[in-house]
């Protein structure tokens, strides 16, 4: 399934947050969205997934939804959004219970996604007993259980320490190698962007406009952190971002 953003603009009351965003998210691609904080990345992601209506423009979906897909547009949140009163397996079960599945089918899905995220031993644990990285893996397992067509991730690794972040980034790469999922991935971490993104969309400061789209052809599995080509791209992105951040600072002083 592809997503096409056509002339998306958005206001909160008087505040213009996004201006004329045109973007295609193609099947099997990870599109990273980066930009200074407050530029409207999270807002854009909410618009893409239908959690909010844009003031102007539209988000179109085209192409077939894959077989057995229960929730085409599925989020992974920065704060995990797990129900603290449900165990790991019950948190996954939550998003399956509204669908017409037999108990056995549901159980099979839960066992499968927990095995894929290496959580099989923690089925009966409550979220408070888990580390941040494990909580996010539960959230990833929950997202996988509905066989999404597009994953919408809002800074999924930002609440984690850097070692855990590396490990989970590897997991996301492995997973993509196996299943070629489609994703929109919001981050403020440029390293994550160059490691995971097939395309990197740089947004300007508020009101967010697309400043530049960087394509990286290198296969995800070849992207090591010491790769010089990636480092050059990361540096370019950094310069773009720094200009925006400096400009945003000056604007605040003017107000």
């Amino acid at each position, binding site marked *: 399934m592809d997503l096409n953003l056509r002339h998306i603009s958005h206001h909160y009351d008087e505040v213009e947050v996004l201006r004329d965003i045109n973007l295609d998210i193609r099947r099997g691609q990870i599109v990273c969205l980066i930009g200074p904080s407050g530029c409207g990345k999270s807002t854009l992601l909410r618009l893409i*997934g239908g959690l909010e209506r844009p003031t102007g423009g539209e988000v179109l979906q085209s192409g077939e939804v894959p077989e057995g897909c229960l929730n085409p547009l599925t989020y992974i*949140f920065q704060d995990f*959004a797990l129900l603290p*009163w449900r165990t790991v397996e019950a948190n996954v079960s*939550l998003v399956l*219970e509204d669908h017409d599945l037999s108990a056995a089918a549901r159980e099979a899905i839960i066992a499968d996604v927990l095995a894929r995220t290496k959580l099989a031993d923690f089925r009966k644990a409550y979220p408070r007993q888990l580390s941040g990285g494990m909580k996010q893996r539960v959230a990833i397992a*929950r997202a996988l259980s*509905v066989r999404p067509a597009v994953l919408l991730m809002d800074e999924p690794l930002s609440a984690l320490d850097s070692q855990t972040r590396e490990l989970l980034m590897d997991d996301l790469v492995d997973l993509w190698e196996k299943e070629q999922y489609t994703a929109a991935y919001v981050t403020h971490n440029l390293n994550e962007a160059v490691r995971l993104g097939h395309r990197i969309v740089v947004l300007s400061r508020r009101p967010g406009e697309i400043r530049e789209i960087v394509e990286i052809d290198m296969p995800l599995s070849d992207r090591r952190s010491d790769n010089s080509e990636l480092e050059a791209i990361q540096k370019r992105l950094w310069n773009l971002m720094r200009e925006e951040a400096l400009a945003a600072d000056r604007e605040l002083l003017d107000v």
Partner: protein
Amino acid sequence: MSDGLRESEGPESPAKPVPFRGGGFLPKPRRIVAPIVFIALIAFWEFGCRVGFISPLILPAPSEAFDAFMNLVRTGLLWDHLAASLQRLLIGWSAGTLLGIFVGTLIGLFSLARSGLQPLVSAIFPVPKIALLPLFVIWFGIGEGSKVATILFGTFFPTVIATYGGIDNVDRNLIRMGQSFGLSKLSIIRKIILPGALPAILSGARISAAIAIILLVAAEMIAAEYGVGAYILLAGSLMATDQLIAGVALLSLMGLVFAWLIGQAEKYFLKWR
């Protein structure tokens, strides 16, 4: 500083431990203290009465109150009083709580209910229900109806407020998560909002149980043959202070049992915390 290799034993002043400044501000329950305080107080009271510096006119000795209590047990009147009171409490409190949770949920979820009912609840909540007792007698009869109604109204309002307060405090991100996975409205209410509000609802139940016991005595002032409250009031009007103390101790015991039961419910339902 000249000798970089030597880390300990500075030349100028001898090493001493860093003074401890943390800790405190975290009262923990110490199990044995409460019984000791309790027993010491009763022993002092009994001693005072025996020696005579507490006049029996002011306060009867604990042993006399205990005799009055045993008298209740012997005559079997204790069970009549307890049964009458517990029935009123249970019906009034559970009906008030269930209705309160229902109305509180409506106020918590729907704009129309919130705009219409919230001001009404705020207006009626602070009215002492005892003041309305004569009205309840006219509306619900002098029998059980008015007594149960007093307790019901008294427990209804705090439960409403606790429930919608709890719903207001449910993490919006969790609700948004539910929507993003396409859960039905009913599932979101049943599986996300109500469990999220449960801690607040249970602490509301604690408060309303205490209110129910307070109102029980008031409700039994009017034409009640049996009931702990009726027993206390009769003892009071006869100046039978030993019976009065026995009845009050009984009320306090009921309060402790209720609090314990709600504590168990909290342990069970909130074990995820």
